[in-house]
């Protein structure tokens, strides 16, 4: 799927070994009249989009610094910091890495990495939190002879 944000056009392309290549290229060529920024293979990121994303990223960085250094939010701090970081990360992934315009398979691949990462960290963390009291008790025993 290619989306043309300026005009909302959608070009579907069957990528199985270019069996539809000819057909699509005709379509794309027709489309090129409307969009000077044309590439036969992929979506071209527009200048305003790139700049907007960059300034948003810088803005969010400033926000997180302000929040991290000026506000005292206790346990919320970690959560807010992570939310902002995730917002920034999403901007990078969606626009700079043009995942928004990419094939569903690649989106799926990236999401699966996050899934397996959270499995790994989540289950390990869950265990560590539960065995720690035992470890701490042993440490205290060792520390006080």
């Amino acid at each position, binding site marked *: 799927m290619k989306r043309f944000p300026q005009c909302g056009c959608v070009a579907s392309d*069957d*990528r199985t*070994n*270019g*069996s539809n*290549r000819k*057909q699509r290229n005709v379509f794309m060529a027709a489309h090129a009249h409307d969009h000077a*920024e044309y*590439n*036969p*293979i*992929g979506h*071209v*990121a527009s*200048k305003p989009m*790139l*700049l907007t*994303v*960059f300034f948003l*990223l*810088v803005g969010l*960085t400033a926000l*997180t*610094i302000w*929040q*991290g*250094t000026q506000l005292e939010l206790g346990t919320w*701090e970690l959560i807010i*910091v*992570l939310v*902002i*970081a995730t917002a*920034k*990360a999403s901007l*990078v*992934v969606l*626009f*700079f*890495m043009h995942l928004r315009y*990419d*094939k569903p*398979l*690649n989106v799926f*691949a*990236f999401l*699966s*990495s*996050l899934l*397996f*990462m959270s499995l*790994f*960290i989540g289950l*390990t*963390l869950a265990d*560590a*939190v539960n065995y*720690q009291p035992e470890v701490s008790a042993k*440490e205290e025993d*060792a*520390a006080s002879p």
Partner: protein
Amino acid sequence: MSATADPSTATADPHGTAGHGHGHDDHHEPFLAHHFESWQQQFDAGKLGVWAFLVQEVLFFSGLFCAYAVYRMLHPEVFEYADQFLSVPHGAFNTVVLLFSSLTMAWGVRCAMLGQRNGLIGCLAVTLFCAALFLGVKAYEYSEKYHAQLIWAGADPLTVSPSGMQAGAGHLLELDPEKRAVGEQLEERLASTLHYLEFGMGVVGLLTLAAAVGIYYAKPERIGLAVVFGAISLSAIAIVIGAMASMGIHHMMHASGHEATADSEAEAAHMAEAEDEPPVHTATPGTAEIAGSTHGASVKAELSRPQRLGTFFGIYYAMTGVHALHILGGMVVLTWLLARAVKGHFTPNYFGPVDYVGLYWHLVDLVWIYLFPLLYLIG
């Protein structure tokens, strides 16, 4: 091979022996590999490959984040204590540098897709410059921590394990508590280390620049090699600038009325509030004595020093170190791209490598987007 071919009788012709009958002459293109049918197929394969590689990268880093999460969850006091030693302005500067490099990288991909050779070269050069700038700042941060002896457990003479063992023996690096620097002294030593670095990098930068220019004029056909030398020169100079800029930031902080002249003095400053802090494990008296022989202020500081501070710095160095290695790897591939871009290899049909390196570069940025707040901002 029409789109309407009945799949049950469809025949595959994957190798072009009969492929010339298809009437597309893609096979004569220099960068279309023989086993691909079309530019699109080659691009899609490469792209999926890179995404799979990024998946691999995410899981690779997940080990570090997991270690971070576990220690942070179990020993929050260590992280809160250690946070004061990480300089937010330097981290913020580096964050913006990386974000900007991501912008130029994405812009470079755009140029490549539109066939704008000069734009591509410019973007790649700026990206490379930013990467090296980042490393320059990192070099400043590492040297500062080294002189202040804010270091991982095995090298830290003050680390005492929970079981009461004095650690450090048998590892490659072990610091001498006598050599621990604070205040003015720290600043001096830091400045001199950085001067060595700047001098060395300056020499490398000039020599490689000379080599690049020499090759360009003597053997214009070896332009690729000239670009490689040029890229090394650019990086070396950027590292120098990064180190100098960090020193500048440091002085700015100092001038803007900060109490502490160096971050490690925050340790002493921090002492004042030590009483209000949540209870932390205290080191054994023996350790306090060692520290006391160096500097009066740090005696008290050591008292509030949590156990496993060394583990925090172990994680800090592991995370930032592995990330810095990725930056270095990125610089190598950026240099390769630069050489190919100068040679004019990339066309709107063949821009895959630029896009792939771009994706990798954004991932490295992505990791930093998390590292910065997790390490610098949680206090």
